[in-house]
């Protein structure tokens, strides 16, 4: 699935709303609890096979669907790693 769509689906499932534009700031909208912040990091790592490093901890990287998409694309380009979905890791929803 397209990176942007995958991220959007994940966030929408958590916030329980379809009224979210890809540029909406999910932190400003109050959707991000400390647990969801951790879940976002885990999701990005497990779904796209990129490591979230200390220096990546910027609100700007995680604040919207578009921001997360750009972050994932940039990190994949950096590492040259192929996307690795949760399903291919052996977990079936």
């Amino acid at each position, binding site marked *: 699935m397209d990176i942007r769509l995958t991220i959007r689906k994940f966030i929408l*499932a958590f*916030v329980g709303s379809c009224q979210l534009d890809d540029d909406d700031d999910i932190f400003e909208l109050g959707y991000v609890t400390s647990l969801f912040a*951790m879940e976002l990091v*885990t999701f990005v790592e497990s779904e796209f096979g990129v490591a979230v490093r200390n220096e990546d*901890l910027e609100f700007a990287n995680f604040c919207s669907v578009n921001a997360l998409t750009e972050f994932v694309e940039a990190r994949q380009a950096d590492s040259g790693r192929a996307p690795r979905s*949760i399903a291919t890791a052996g977990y079936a929803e």
Partner: protein
Amino acid sequence: MNLRLTAEELELRAAFRGFSDKEIVPNAAAWDAEQRLPDEAIAKLGCEGYLGATIPPAYGGRGLSMIAYGLLHQELSRGTCAASSLLTVHGMVAEAIRRWGTVEQKEIWLPRMSSGAALGAFCLTEKRVGSDAKSVETRAEPFGDGFVVNGVKRWISFGEIADVYLVLARLEEGPSTLLVERDTQGLTISPMTENLGLRASRIAQVSLDGCWIPRANLVGRAGFGFSHVVGSALQLGRYSVAWSCVGIGQACLEAALRYSAEREQFGAPLRDHPLIKQMLTNMITEVEAARLLAYQAGQLADLNHPRKILATLVAKYFASRMANRVASDALQIHGANGCSRDYPVERHFRDARVTEIIEGSTQIHQLLIAGYGSQGYEPHGGLC
């Protein structure tokens, strides 16, 4: 979901059980009475590699799977929850460093923590701050190439003997985490004894009075201390406590089965009386249910699946309440003997009570789990 343990996990469980039966179970009552998990016992945990259970082999750890790590907690806690609590808090500090620490922090601390040469303690709670940890009052003010830290942390498990403390403090950017070494000037350790449970856990108050901490000891980015660094540590801590509670439940169940077979009343063993059977049935069912939830959390953690966070909350919530119910029933089956320190159920009953408070109280878990109800949790699909 695969409900079978692998051959390696079965082997590890047997080894953990053997260690606990030999080194922990026979000594647990004395350690509780002395309010001290002795240094020699901690050294043995280090020799077995248990203190580095979750630390990657590259840093000298065993790099156990989360399932195996859970089994380790279960078996240690079957002896005493205090031994499991050492691995919990030590493991939480190691996890924070592994996940968010700098290369230098990992190289300095993880090998030493793997062997047990350095013990870690997790400093979150304060006199006026507990569940609302984001309101932490300990302050870190920039000074030179570091910070001056002032504050008092309480109820710190193994704070009495730790070598490095992971301290949550407020910086201008928000809650942040710092590694504070034991020999830091201005650091004072005061043992906190005569507690209800986890009496051997070397609990202490940790006071920081003008402690200067180098910037190099900041773990994670400033302002992300609570959400990410403490969040990662608590995730592992909750998982550890869930399994520890399964261990308490298992110990109480085994004791109740033994006692109810040996003791006779009205001309028959206790276990033949219908109301005792009812209690044993509930105990067996609840222990098994908690173990399954813990397995689920472990499997999701091994896959690094995002739902590991909810699964761990659910496991800890259920298992800690289960441990209290099962310990209470075990004590009831023991009658007056259950109120005596001659029987381990009395100690497990006290320890179980603490598990509903540590690493997030039952009420905080209720708030968090209920929050998932309107945020993507599919009631008919469950977690898997």
